[in-house]
């Protein structure tokens, strides 16, 4: 039986605690706002001798992911954390980590990307990593960031997955705000995450192995990438299985999506991360007023749970897709593109509006959410067009 400690904690502290409990053999650390308090907390765990982890103070995020790749190839359990420009600096290494099929768990404090420079929360950074081959969670709360981080180790290290996992939480809103959180006891978490059983490690194996070989013309590259695509697609049932197993331990539900009142909803807002609370609050008001609205939050962003999203949205009359990042040059924001792809396979066409909101930590006030729901009713009635809209810039 798990022992639970209730505490007031920030998202970053909960992520740090999850990392401590999973106790990686190697953590590479580089500071960047608003992630820094994760690696700071971990430094203290190391200094106090609470973990056996080899803690590497790298000189950049590029080296952070480079060292994590070396350590994971060597056979170690590996974790790191980053944000924004740091994640962008890692870009080539994100592809390499996934392409080499190396389990690595990385926390990301979702933050705006320059220019102009801005340290606050949005999804510009994580959306830039969406095609890198990483499994990506986006947490709504500090508690969920903790749960996602714990299951990330099991998913990444699963023999049939062997992919890096990003466990993300929204900059400042989730990383720094205090919430009521539940921390499970170390023994329970350690029993759940277990030990990594490396496949073909550089060290401690029974034969020399090569990692990161040269695959030029001749099809080897193509085959490896095909296998990577298959591994991503095939990871969904394992993610579900591991998530459900953790749900039974922590007694909090797990699913790829979090559908609030969607079953009979005419108007649904699709959203990611910390803004969901405000959307749900407005939805509750509207439900009380007799308007059938729902909220669909997506917890697992990659692989994108197309089937579940389609199922949750199939009966809606109009859908708003809230993007806290833009995809310049595309018709819609990143979530807009994914959700519309999911909807394409439905027999009936459901109109959508894509809202870009809260970039650089701009407030997402209840009035703006009410406007979104109001506009959905106009959209369904045919008095408003589809398309992409910046919410609250003018």
């Amino acid at each position, binding site marked *: 039986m798990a022992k639970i400690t209730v505490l007031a904690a920030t998202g970053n502290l909960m992520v740090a605690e999850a990392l401590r409990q999973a106790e990686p053999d190697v953590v590479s650390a580089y500071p960047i706002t608003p992630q820094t308090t994760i690696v700071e907390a971990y430094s203290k765990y190391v200094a106090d001798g609470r973990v056996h982890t*080899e803690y*590497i103070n*790298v000189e950049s995020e590029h*080296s952070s992911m480079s060292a994590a790749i*070396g350590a994971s190839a060597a*056979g170690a359990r590996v974790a790191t954390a980053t944000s924004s420009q740091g994640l962008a600096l890692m870009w080539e*290494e994100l592809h390499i980590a996934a392409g080499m099929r190396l389990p690595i768990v990385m926390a990301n404090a979702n933050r705006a990307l320059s220019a102009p420079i801005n340290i606050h929360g949005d999804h510009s950074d994580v959306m830039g990593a969406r095609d890198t081959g990483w499994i990506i969670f986006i947490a709504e709360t500090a508690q969920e960031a903790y749960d996602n981080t714990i299951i990330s180790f099991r998913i990444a290290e699963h023999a049939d997955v062997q992919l890096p996992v990003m466990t993300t939480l929204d900059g400042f809103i989730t990383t720094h705000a205090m919430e009521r959180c539940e921390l499970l006891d170390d023994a329970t978490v350690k029993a759940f995450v277990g030990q990594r059983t490396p496949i073909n490690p550089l*060290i401690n194996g029974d034969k020399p192995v090569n990692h990161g070989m*040269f695959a030029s013309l001749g099809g080897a590259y193509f085959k490896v990438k095909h296998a990577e695509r298959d591994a991503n697609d095939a990871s969904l049932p394992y993610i579900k299985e591991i998530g459900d197993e953790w749900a039974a331990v922590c007694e909090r539900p797990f699913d790829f999506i979090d559908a609030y009142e969607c079953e009979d909803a005419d108007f649904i807002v699709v959203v990611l991360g910390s803004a969901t609370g405000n959307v749900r609050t407005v939805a509750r008001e509207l439900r009380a007023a007799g308007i059938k609205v729902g909220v669909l939050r997506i917890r697992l962003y990659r692989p994108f749970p197309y089937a579940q999203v389609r199922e949750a949205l199939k009966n809606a009359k109009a859908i708003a897709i809230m993007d806290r990042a833009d995809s310049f040059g595309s018709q819609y924001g990143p979530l807009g593109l994914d959700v519309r792809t999911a909807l394409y396979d439905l027999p009936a066409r459901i109109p959508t509006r894509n809202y870009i909101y809260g970039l650089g930590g701009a407030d997402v006030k209840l009035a703006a959410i009410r406007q979104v729901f109001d506009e959905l009713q106009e959209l369904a009635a045919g008095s408003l067009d589809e398309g992409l809209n910046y919410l609250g810039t003018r």
Partner: protein
Amino acid sequence: MASIKELSKQPDLLVGGHRLCGGCGASIAARQVLLGARDVEVVAASATGCLEVSTSALPYSSWATSWIHNAFENAAATITGVEAAYKGLKAAGKIAQDKEIKFVAFAGDGATYDIGFQSLSGALERGHDFVYVCYDNGAYMNTGIQRSSATPHYAWATTSEVGKAIPGKPQKRKDLTSIVAAHHIPYAAQASIGNWKDLVEKAEKAFATPGPAFLNVLAPCPRGWRYDSSMTIEISRLAFKSKFWPLFEVADGVWTMREVKEKDVIPVADFLKLQGRFAHLFKPTPSPLLEQIQQEVDEYYAYIQRMCAAHS
């Protein structure tokens, strides 16, 4: 140090069948350095470059040891990740306490002097127990002889072309070995594949030294330097005899140089004239720039001598 007889019996960790050019200095450098590990297990890393692409083309490998390639600029960070894993797994009791492994990274001058410089500096500062080997052929040879900060003054390269307006690379080469020594790591040395005994001795010291060790190994490239592939070792020796490439080491702050014997010293022009990348300095008539190069070579040699005298 081990005798040549003993070394000849040691198994090669980089074996034949790779696709490097005939006369390539890089594979010679790697094999000689790996001899220095003696019979201890080695894990190697390579930066992207000639050595990497030519030894690891799927599904074949020339590495008889565990090996990893990550990217161009991060051989140092990558191998220190492996080394950290070794320590972390030992701390977790997942590796036997008496298990000994040596860690070595191989990277060309582009991957070391230029794009991987930060990664190297960070790894040295952190004090990991590893050996970093730069095989210095003085340009980006893998992509086709583009200049790097290791390219010598006035050498031709495909991105520092020779023409009426510009006589080859306008800048002097970066003194990377001294910069590495300024990290005050336990061991840093400059060596050459033309002086195998000196190189293997230095490699042995580098592997035996706890903490970071650095070897900058001159490894001529027949394609890039424009000479016949049979001349690689001879050219390497002339680099030493002309004082172009001083063989020195910095061990725990003590600077020592293997001086060129007075009777062996040759003008730097005798080293340069065998290489097509300096042909423009000799045709149609010897360029006055040769005197400038001689002066710069003498100045650098004297600088190393002064460092040796001051830090003995």
